[in-house]
């Protein structure tokens, strides 16, 4: 297939550059009266669209117990091998699931946020949240363990955390403690 190559040949007026400058200034003038596309981050947080795949969380059931049963489906599905689960018999015997994770670690530096873990989970226990600003100065901080993932559930279960932050609620994402 032939490829059409467009070349730019400036005409007489183009060589003055004045029409181009005028067009550019006109665009600036129009934009000055439109709604702004930028936001003054971090004073105002960007709110990602629904379905955004950010930091993981481990859900809790109605009794406040971890929903995860350590079936290791997410670990098996994970293409980046960033999930490490060690199962153990659950400590409760009141009708809850008989198995739960003794250790559940996600290496956020390895994670590619594909969401396969969420799709693989038969118990709706692991979910990706809207949180994107969890940078840290240490690699160790970015290996998030079971308690950290449950803490993410606590801060995200009441609604989109950035909308709440923009409304003035003070919610801290403390990476060192996740």
């Amino acid at each position, binding site marked *: 297939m032939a490829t059409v190559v467009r070349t730019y040949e400036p005409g007489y007026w183009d060589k003055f550059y004045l029409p181009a400058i005028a067009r550019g200034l006109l665009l600036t003038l129009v934009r000055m009266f439109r709604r702004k596309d930028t936001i003054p981050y971090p004073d105002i947080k960007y709110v990602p669209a629904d379905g955004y795949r950010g930091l993981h969380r481990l859900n809790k059931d109605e009794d406040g117990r971890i929903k995860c*049963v350590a*079936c*290791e*489906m997410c670990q098996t599905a994970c293409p980046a091998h960033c999930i490490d689960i060690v*199962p153990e*018999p659950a400590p409760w015997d009141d009708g809850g*699931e*008989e198995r739960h994770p003794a250790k559940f670690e996600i290496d956020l530096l390895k994670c590619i946020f594909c969401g396969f873990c969420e799709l693989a989970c*038969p118990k709706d226990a692991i979910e990706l949240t809207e949180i994107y600003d969890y940078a840290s100065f240490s690699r160790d901080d970015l290996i998030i363990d079971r308690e950290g993932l449950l803490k993410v559930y606590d801060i995200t279960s009441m609604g989109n955390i950035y909308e709440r932050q923009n409304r003035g609620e003070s919610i801290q994402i403390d990476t060192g403690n996740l």
Partner: protein
Amino acid sequence: MPLIKIDGQELEVEAGSRLLDVALEAGIEVPHYCYHPALSVVGSCRLCMVEVEGMPKLQTACSTPIGEAPPDRKVDGKYDMVVHTDTDKVVAGQKLVLEFLLLNHPLDCPVCDQAGECGLQDYSFKFGNAHSRFDEDKRVRAAEELGSGVAINQNRCIMCTRCVRFTQEITGTNELYVHGRGYDTKIAIFDGLPLDNPLSGNVADICPVGALLLKDYMHTTRVWHLSHTESACVECSSGCSITVDATDNVVRRIVSRRNDQANGHFICDFGRYSFHKYERSEFKEPMRKTPGSGWEMIPWRQAYQLIADKVAAGGGPGAVKALASPTLPNEPNYILGQFMGRLSDRKNIALLPVTQLSDMEFPGGFRISGDKGGNSRGARDVIPALAASVKALHKTDTGVIIILDGDGRAEMKGDLTRLMAAAQFSVVVACMPSEVTQNADLVLPIAAPYAREGTFTNDQGLVQWLQPALHPPDDVRADWQVVAELGQQLTGEDHLYSYAGDVTWKITQTTVGYGQITRFRLGKLGQFTASAAG
């Protein structure tokens, strides 16, 4: 011999053989739960149904024998039986039976340890429906303990009664029975009579679903993460074939592997749980006993130098005695026998005594050997000049004594205690602490049983290859290598082996009865020595 046709495949089989056996052997998949080749046929799961031409209804393949038809009733003039396993009728039958089996099944695969090797999962996927028409509440029952090693999840049970037949026919102990009728049927034990026989772990192996579970393995790993190593059990002289399942360089469980030459289908619980013994405190480096009862870690080179010095100080190579190990493979024992023979004309090597009990025989034919050595026969085979007992070594003075303790299964008593006391310096080759290593002057570490490689000869003369399932710690050497290096130190001759199979080859070249054995022929099921086969 009857001529039959299964799915267009012509087969000539012996009269009286089971249709299911024939089909499976011909590579035709017929789903089945209650049928197990080691157990009697009950035909209770109704899943192995096939269509036999001339019979109006579907037949269970497991309970249908093949016979000779009269000449005038042969199909197409020559076939005694024409069978179809994939007609619409059969497929519909399988779907219905699976739907029935799943009526009360909780579908709790995420918490079930059988997930990944479950008959219900596999057959539902291949032959079953994607949905169930059962709208009522499922029957829910509490999990129960059947014995010290086995628990039952009644909800998952499909009542194939393999476990009940196992306790009736193989162990003869009859702990399990079918309780109740119809909707209330369940597998149960009698009051005060738990399932605690020495083969009880097998019921979890033969359970096609996740109903019977080993408490030991419960909630540890998922089966698809396990690496399966086909090896042999070293705990007694029966030498059962096993599969060692490991993840992260840790043995998670041991399951039986069918070997009709050795154990048949099953293994005993001693072998099944033996790996826990080796989990604790393996040796990591050579250790020397220092004055004041402490142990000092020393490098290998220094350890060998120490032995050379002690041999020179203790009457020279002629006063060196050795005890071969019935718990180690043939390879280290062979090398030990070879170089000890070169050190002295007298008999200077005996077999380390290990626990001897009486054999345990079960009605189903399974035998647990009383000889807890594992490789006693192999050690006797590969060391020609073996002294009759440890006592025979007392006749002359002992300088340095080399003891292959292997798994630390030797009993510190009688002649062995006296021999170690009489020796000026004792070197023990072992993988973990034992009574013998406590009394040693120098301990040389070797790999633990499931990290070992080599041949084992069971008491029937079956030679099997031990396949290593684990990596030993960095500074721990293979058993044959340590013994070969000891020999090099004592005789001054270079040892010529680069891996375990090298030694095996040498054994087959020089040992009576082992001539026909090669690593290739050993395969996964082993090979009998010439004397045992003849």
